[in-house]
């Protein structure tokens, strides 16, 4: 990981602008299907959510023009991309790279909170449960994507690794302790 401590990479503004006009419904549907695959392979993530497995979360990548509303729905998650604030019991906001870094275990959630790179609002308890459940699940989103890519899996994995190297954005599960 290339970013120096304390500097979270921002999503390129030009690319973010392109999302302003993008149709969010097909993206939401794709992400819902994708998250259900993750749910099947990582059922412990939803068990660990406990009483919050039916709580709606607003994940707000602050450098993108939409929010992600995640409804764990007891293990059959629904993901909806929305413009505006979104509606949920807890809101976790930060640059996309910070959110991805949390998912991949590259960053520590409390450290991002101390540095103000991450903002939590609403039901703090639910937000904490989600963070802990995701941290324990040791997800690798690039692995989750490439598993559907057949013979392209290897080249695509290398592509993700290369993008990760140059952008400083965590796109794969972090080697323990090397990046934070």
């Amino acid at each position: 990981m290339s970013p120096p401590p304390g500097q979270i990479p921002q999503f390129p503004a030009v690319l973010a602008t392109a999302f302003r006009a993008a149709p969010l419904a097909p993206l939401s549907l794709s992400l819902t299907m994708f998250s259900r695959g993750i749910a099947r392979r990582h059922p412990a993530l939803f068990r660990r959510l406990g009483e919050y497995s039916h709580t709606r979360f607003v994940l707000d990548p602050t450098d993108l023009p939409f929010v992600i509303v995640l409804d764990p729905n007891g293990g059959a998650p629904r993901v909806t991309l929305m413009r505006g604030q979104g509606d949920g019991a807890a809101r976790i906001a930060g640059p996309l790279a910070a959110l991805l870094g949390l998912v991949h275990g590259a960053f520590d959630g409390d450290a991002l909170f101390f540095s103000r790179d991450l903002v939590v609002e609403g039901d703090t308890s639910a937000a904490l449960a989600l963070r802990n459940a995701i941290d324990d699940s040791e997800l690798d989103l690039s692995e989750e994507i490439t598993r559907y890519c057949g013979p392209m899996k290897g080249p695509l994995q290398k592509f993700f690794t290369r993008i990760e190297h140059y952008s400083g954005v965590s796109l794969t599960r972090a080697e323990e302790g090397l990046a934070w």
Partner: protein
Amino acid sequence: MVMEIVCPAGTPASLRAAVTAGAHTIYCGFADETNARNFPGLNFDRSEMHEGIAFAHARGAKVLVAINTFPRAGDEALWHRAVADAESCGADAVILADLGLLDHAARHHPGLRRHLSVQAAASNADALNFYADTFGVKRVVLPRVLSVPEIAAINAETDVETEVFVYGGLCVMAEGRCSLSSYATGRSPNMNGVCSPASHVEYHDEGGVLDARLGGYTIHRVGKDQPAPYPTLCKGCFSAGDKTGHLFEDPVSLNAEQLIPQLQKAGVTALKIEGRQRSRSYVAQVVRNFRAAVDALDAGLPMPEGMLARLSEGQAMTTGAYKKTWR
């Protein structure tokens, strides 16, 4: 002999990260009120504990199970079951605080090694020796209010092993007796395993100014770009008269890394890292840092410079009472 690094694990993933990063020993707890980090989404069910201990043992690491809250009258069975399950899961020791639970463990699980939790606040040699003589306690975790000379004085008068905190959240009150969280929320680390429970914490970020409220009380407000602290009353910023400041302690993390040689000379056996509520990233980073430090000490090399400021509360660090001059 290399000083023992005792590392936190709030989840099975963190336990694996700690072992992989070089922890000698990991401490963790069951997902209920029997341990002092009873936070949502944290801790181990029985099968996770069994698997975690097997993982650690296969790699030469030990696992201690913290059952360090104080049993509620009429509900002791929950705590008794936790001790029995820790033993059947293969724990190397249990970390206990309550006198009744220590007595129960000594009578019913005599083969299970017993450590005294920091929550018992044993802070002089007579107290340590009492726990050792009466309940067969083999190790005591010392409270974070002692200076290095005081720790040396204790070790000179006891054969019980001592373990001290070297990194992480800094509890500045009499541990096991602090009621600040109870005053604001009705729940405490001592009885419920939660200091400043997340269910009672609210953050409001308006224009970059972050307000933290606990049980409805605003306990601190930080401006844009200022580091944020944990929402604990002991680190709260209060106004009285015409003065505003941190009444008990500044929002900082303990870091006694550079004092490790002195702690070794003071007779300390094990160095404890706080943070079962933290991520596997934190665990791995801090473990590597401290493992490098004790290995350097053992090899007669200077202490390496750490890189832990970013992981610290308020992004600031202190040596706490170990070097406090006002005491």
